């Protein structure tokens, strides 16, 4: 069996302030990917943030003209596979992120924690990679 490279499903997040959310994600360790800004102040039509170990999320504003891909803000729940959760945890603490679940070693062999961003999306980081 060939090694799986799980980069083919991208989660999308509707955000009130996508530029701020991108900045927050960058401070957690995401790399900034493409940013397609709209005409409104702070409006983002499409953007991607890349996790260095693989995977990415799309962050965008609610589209007022076409709500096809808009979801209620703060409803995202995402899990990010990470090799060093303690490093991300330290960054989250430095950011003053709201802790949703303390760092723990789960019985299925994962070490990780969960935080919420300012808009209420929950971000879990853990070593469990399937």
């Amino acid at each position: 069996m060939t090694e799986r490279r799980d980069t083919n499903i991208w989660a999308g997040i509707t955000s009130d302030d996508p530029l701020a959310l991108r900045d927050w994600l960058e401070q957690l360790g995401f790399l900034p990917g493409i940013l397609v800004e709209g005409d409104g102040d702070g409006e983002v039509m499409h953007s991607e943030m890349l996790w260095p170990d693989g995977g990415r999320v799309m962050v965008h504003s609610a589209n007022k003209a076409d709500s096809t891909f808009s979801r209620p803000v703060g409803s995202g729940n995402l899990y990010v596979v990470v090799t060093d959760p303690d490093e991300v945890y330290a960054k989250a603490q430095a950011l003053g992120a709201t802790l949703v679940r303390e760092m723990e070693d789960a019985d299925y062999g994962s070490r990780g924690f969960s935080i919420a961003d300012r808009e209420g999306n929950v971000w879990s980081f853990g070593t469990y990679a399937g």
Partner: protein
Amino acid sequence: MELRDVRRLTGVEITPYDISGGSPGQHLGLPSATATLIVDLADGLVLGTEGRSETDTFRCCLAGMHLRPVTIHHDGSQVGVQVSLSPAAVRALFGLPVGELANGTSELAQIDTDIARRLHDQLAQAHPDDRAAVCAGALVDIASDAAPFDDAHAAWEYLARRRGDVTVAELVEQSGWSARYLTRLFTAEFGIGPKQAARLMRFDAARAGLEAGRAAVDVAADCGYADQSHMSREFTDLTGLSPRSLLRRRAEEFG
């Protein structure tokens, strides 16, 4: 001195400077929709960036477009030649997209040793009054005929002609590409997206208007800002200073 369409070298503005006996200070390198080449003919150009305590010293400095100001420290004497370069000129001179310089400042010798040495030597030997002409001649000698003209540059030209007063939607419509694809092309070439480029061009135009003594309310309207406070916010975002404070600061620097 301005170079326009000399061997396809367009959008080049050459400004020699020779200031001595002033007091030590800091000069604000403002964000702009151009790259900047500075050939220092004194003891080196000392640059600092926001949020960093260290400074770097350059002899021939090539800086890409940036969205925050750069601080230039000097001891009261400054001698050299500043050249502002359009993205097309950066391509023609150095054969690379200006995006590769984005938010960074490089010693030109690390990009092209030969060009850096020739420029510096020729300018150092020139009489101060001839520096602009000597610089223009040297740049024309360097420029290759292979100027780029692709969709990214076409979009840039469209924005530039309208001094940044273009909506993203209109630019996308004009290009025939999707917003996503156009932004990808554009960002790869220029290092910033269309909206940021438009902001910089608009800022350049507004600053020129204000520095020419025009009323802020008229400048804001002409440059396509929603109102004067919108223009103010943009100035504060890009320079850390309100339009009024920026003008005062520039008058003090160059007065």
